[in-house]
């Protein structure tokens, strides 16, 4: 089947993107993960990897074209696959026509000039009752529309931990990585990473499930405002999910993100948050024991150049090649300006004081309410894999030989299969 190559969102505020050069020409063979084309933003040229292996066909974007995010710029098709780009485009239009009513509901929200001052009637009433000026409230709805949740969150400025988390949640960078049918998968990355780290895994998911990912506070495109406690991270993610209207999902978390996912899944037992985890997948999770590779944390945070960062990044995977060549460059690019490193240093001081994981998730996993799997690499040099021992027999432990701290990249096919299996089990 032909895979669409789309113009991805590589920058937080990006609505359109300018095509840079293609690294692969029409008709040439391409391997999944190979650099395919560049997007030029105001700041830099970003490289985009091929979403599948095959032959590049139907290239419909040239250098300098300015296109909306999500625009189809070409297709990757099988070697012998019959392919007609016009027909492909026509089929898309036809689908849109037939499903016009449903398409209306799904239509993309295009920012309009008069977006300011939009608010739903409920948001207006709540603002009126609370004596709030709507102009002060940032809208998270389509076209910047202020919805009830925005007013509610605005009304409770940073006080205690959960509220601080909620305020951060509204600002978290988040992205639907793919659309699909059924309950969404929610991906939460680990310390020092960002949501883009899930893309290689996603390409291997057998069923097209909706996939949502976010950047934790102090990571990727999300600022760290105030509180750097573990509870504040959980609160921020909880608020971001609520803001997105996600009330039930399959949680997939890596490392620190795994601990956050476990905390969110456990809240269901309390029943307060309104969020329900349908299943829980913890990849090399943090929070199961005290030790963490403190030399890595310190070195990772201190590194300012390719030469100093690369040796530390090598510790992440048993076979560093599996991480991809771009990871070091991307990590360094994000560190320009220093804000991210500063935020992550603060987080590390709070979460890993004196080289110890200061938060624990074992008590939440004692009696898991949802199907739960833990994936660990036997060669993990960041968090000792033995920490996943001694948990409830209801939790499946998948231990991969020859894999380090990044099973979702190092054994992406296998982990994708496990994610799918678990999502099926979770309903």
């Amino acid at each position, binding site marked *: 089947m032909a895979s669409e190559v789309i113009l991805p969102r590589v920058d937080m505020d990006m609505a359109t993107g300018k095509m840079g050069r293609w690294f692969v020409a029409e008709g040439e063979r391409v391997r999944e993960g190979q650099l395919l084309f560049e997007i030029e933003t105001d700041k830099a040229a970003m490289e985009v990897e091929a979403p599948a292996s095959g032959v590049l066909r139907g290239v419909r974007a040239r250098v300098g074209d300015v296109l909306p995010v999500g625009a189809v710029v070409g297709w990757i098709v099988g070697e012998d696959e019959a392919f007609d780009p016009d027909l492909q485009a026509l089929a898309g239009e036809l689908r849109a026509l037939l*499903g016009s009513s449903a398409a209306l*509901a799904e239509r993309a929200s295009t920012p309009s000039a008069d977006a300011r001052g939009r608010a739903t009637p409920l948001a207006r009433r709540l603002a009126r009752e609370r004596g709030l000026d709507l102009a002060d409230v940032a809208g998270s709805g389509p076209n910047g529309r202020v919805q009830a949740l925005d007013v509610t969150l605005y009304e409770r400025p940073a006080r205690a931990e959960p509220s601080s988390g909620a305020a951060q949640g509204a600002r978290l960078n988040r992205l639907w990585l793919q659309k699909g049918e059924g309950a969404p998968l929610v991906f939460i990355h680990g310390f020092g990473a960002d949501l883009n780290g899930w893309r290689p895994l996603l390409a291997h998911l057998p069923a097209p499930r909706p996939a949502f990912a976010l950047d934790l506070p102090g990571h990727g495109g999300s600022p760290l405002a105030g509180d750097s406690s573990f509870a504040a991270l959980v609160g921020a993610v909880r608020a971001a999910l609520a803001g997105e209207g996600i009330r*039930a999902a399959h949680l997939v978390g890596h490392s620190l993100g795994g601990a956050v996912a476990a905390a969110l899944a456990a809240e269901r037992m309390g029943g307060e948050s309104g969020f329900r985890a349908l299943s829980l997948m913890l990849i090399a999770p943090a929070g199961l024991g005290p030790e963490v590779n403190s030399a890595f944390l310190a070195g990772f945070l201190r590194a300012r150049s390719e030469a100093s960062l690369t040796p530390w990044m090598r510790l992440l995977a048993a076979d560093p090649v599996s991480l991809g060549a771009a990871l070091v460059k991307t990590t360094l690019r994000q560190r320009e300006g220093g804000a991210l490193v500063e935020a992550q240093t603060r987080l590390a001081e709070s979460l890993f004081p004196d080289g110890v994981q200061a938060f624990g998730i074992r008590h939440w996993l004692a009696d898991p309410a949802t199907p739960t799997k833990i994936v660990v690499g036997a060669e993990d040099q960041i968090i000792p894999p033995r920490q996943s021992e001694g948990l409830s027999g209801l939790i499946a432990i998948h231990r991969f030989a020859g894999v380090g701290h990044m099973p979702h990249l190092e054994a992406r096919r296998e982990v994708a299969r496990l994610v799918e299996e678990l999502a099926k089990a979770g309903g």
Partner: protein
Amino acid sequence: MSEAMRELTYAEAIREALAIALEADERVILMGEDIGVYGGAFQVTGDLVERFGEDRVIDTPISELGGAGVAVGAALTGMRPVYEFQFSDFSMLAMEQIVNQAAKIRYMLGGAVNVPVVFRMPTGSGLGGAAQHSQSLEAWFAHVPGLKVVEPSTPHDVKGMLLSAIADPDPVILFEHKLLYKTKGPVPEGDYRVALDKAALRRAGRDLTIVATGIMTHRALEAASILAAEGVEAEIVDLRCLRPIDGEAIVASVKKTTRLLAVYEGVKTLGLGAEISALVAESEAFDYLDAPILRLGGAEAPIPYSPVLEKAAVPQVDDIVAAARGLAQGRV
């Protein structure tokens, strides 16, 4: 299930209501094309002609204007006629009798006479009947003061509402979706009544309200169980009565859920959904809306004959799921 509560099909429930009314009141007569020996186009009247005779189960000529006129006339003399259209589409031929006569006479004669007639109308698409046998014209009749218009979605409701309609002093139009005739559900024995002005809450939910009628109620319920797996809890209001419309039930539900999706098979523009939307927008529920109101109606086209296109022309479960999902997540 108690002894008095058996499973009947929608068609059997109608037949039982007709039999009870024929038994209880000698003024009740059935009229329509091929409702006698043939048993009705959708086999609803079945063997009633054998049980009650040709004087009370009357085959009428293929002239809807004539048949409906006789029914209205009979009602004026004190009879309680139930006239069956083979397809609601054919009621277009009888609009003069329904809209200009039946609906107006009590008003124009200062209440001196009533017109207690019931028009039964098989409605909707899904059986490959093409453009002239598949329409959903409920909104046309619901626009006319003097008529009562109902569209029951379950065997229980259709029996109770038909008995209420026959007993009612005014003309009642009963829409029966063709795809419902073979659906089964619990139906109490004997005579019972279901009100002609009350909606039914079919499923409680907190995230959005779906207002639907007839077959769409069933599709909305199916959609709701899919949405529930995603954590979206839809509340389903089965409208049942289009005139008078139960605005209170809709407003109460929207105040609770803050979001509204109207689903109906009739053509979207100037249809049932327009009324439901406007009713909510004009009500106190307006200040509770946290998203735009959404209508999911039939395509702006005659119902196609091709089964693929016929399906595409009216809302299906997937369409409802997609629309509700977008609405619940504030992406409209």
